[in-house]
């Protein structure tokens, strides 16, 4: 048997042993994950919970803060994706309406303008000066 073939076989055996160990004996344990990595249906349920809470308190800021853990996408998009998922996996009409309510609120949401320090002072009228 040629020596190079012997090496190839050894490599293949090593890889097989490595894969068997990695997949069967000691597979990867997912720990310390974030809500953003959850499967689409769990994400949708997460958003649904936010929608249920929003339905009761009508607190858009709180809903946005809660949605922030689901990724860097805009809250309205996250809610819209959840709505889409909910529709595709057969959520009840009530749940869909809650998600729609949240999505609409997020789409219409206008954060309160925060005055930038300095700008206001610079542009302040000087009325009253002689």
């Amino acid at each position, binding site marked *: 048997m040629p020596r190079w073939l012997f090496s*190839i*076989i*050894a490599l293949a055996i090593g890889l097989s042993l490595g894969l068997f160990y990695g997949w069967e004996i000691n597979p990867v344990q997912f720990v310390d994950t*974030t*809500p953003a990595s959850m499967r689409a249906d769990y994400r949708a349920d*997460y958003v649904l919970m936010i929608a249920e809470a929003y339905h009761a308190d009508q607190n858009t800021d709180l809903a946005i803060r809660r949605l922030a853990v689901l990724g860097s996408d805009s809250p309205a998009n996250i809610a819209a994706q959840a709505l889409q998922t909910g529709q595709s996996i057969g959520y009840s009409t009530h749940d869909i309406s809650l998600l729609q309510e949240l999505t609409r609120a997020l789409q219409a949401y206008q954060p309160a303008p925060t005055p930038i320090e300095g700008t206001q002072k610079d542009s302040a009228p000087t009325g009253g000066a002689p």
Partner: protein
Amino acid sequence: MKRFPWEAILALTIGIGLGIFYAWTIAPVRYINTMPNTLRSDFKDQYRILIAASYSSSHDLARAKSRLELLGDADPVQALTAQAQRMLASGQPFDVVQQVAMLADDLQSGVAHIPPTAMPESNISAGPPTLTPAASLSATETPQVAPISSSSPTSEIVSTIVPLTITPRPTQTLTPTAGAPFILLSNDIVCKPDLTDGLMQIYVIDSRGHQMPGVEIIITWDGGEEHFFTGFKPDIKNGYADYIMQANVAYTIRIAESGTPVPDLTAPTCTDSSGQTYTGGLHLTFQQP
């Protein structure tokens, strides 16, 4: 004599090295499609808060239970209770803590708890449903009320009411009735030799008998005052708090939010079976009407 297969060993080592380089650098593991039970502990806490918040809106205990199961806690009630205590200790808003504690309590009792004071805008009344133009109705209700005219005494009021199905739906965050004074429901002397001397056990419950964590209690005596909270001993009850009284000292106790002060509380003197005296305790129960 056969030569040792160094080439094969070298090939194996290089292969493993390349594999690890590929796995760690070129295409590292990306966690996708994970389950809620793999979440980091702080995200699990947020998940429980959300479950509790949605439960306080929907009062769907079965759904809350199945959602909690996703987190893989050995004892969901214990996990919720412990979280409520942590939140309380870290000064998180009382209404959020209460939602978590309430869910734990309802899971334990198996009965959904619907606070009677949570529906200020609801159109649900004890009697038959009546429609007024100002009634706020949900999307599932389809009343049709003609405008009521008061311009002429002879004008007819025409109203067509289609069968009304009312969906009980609280519209506010569930919080205890602000200002409703707590009343002392019971004040019992406890004579148990195995109990800590002078132990004052306090239980605070709401109008439905549910334990109330996070309620501030003020105890005063001649020359002193102390504040403490219910809910720090969930292994006893969520609405439990205790205080060790000194013998021959009169205490006044009051629920901080609102409540009539209960004066002249003293540790009783008890006698055991051998005739020896010891300092007994008190068992007080406060209820929010």
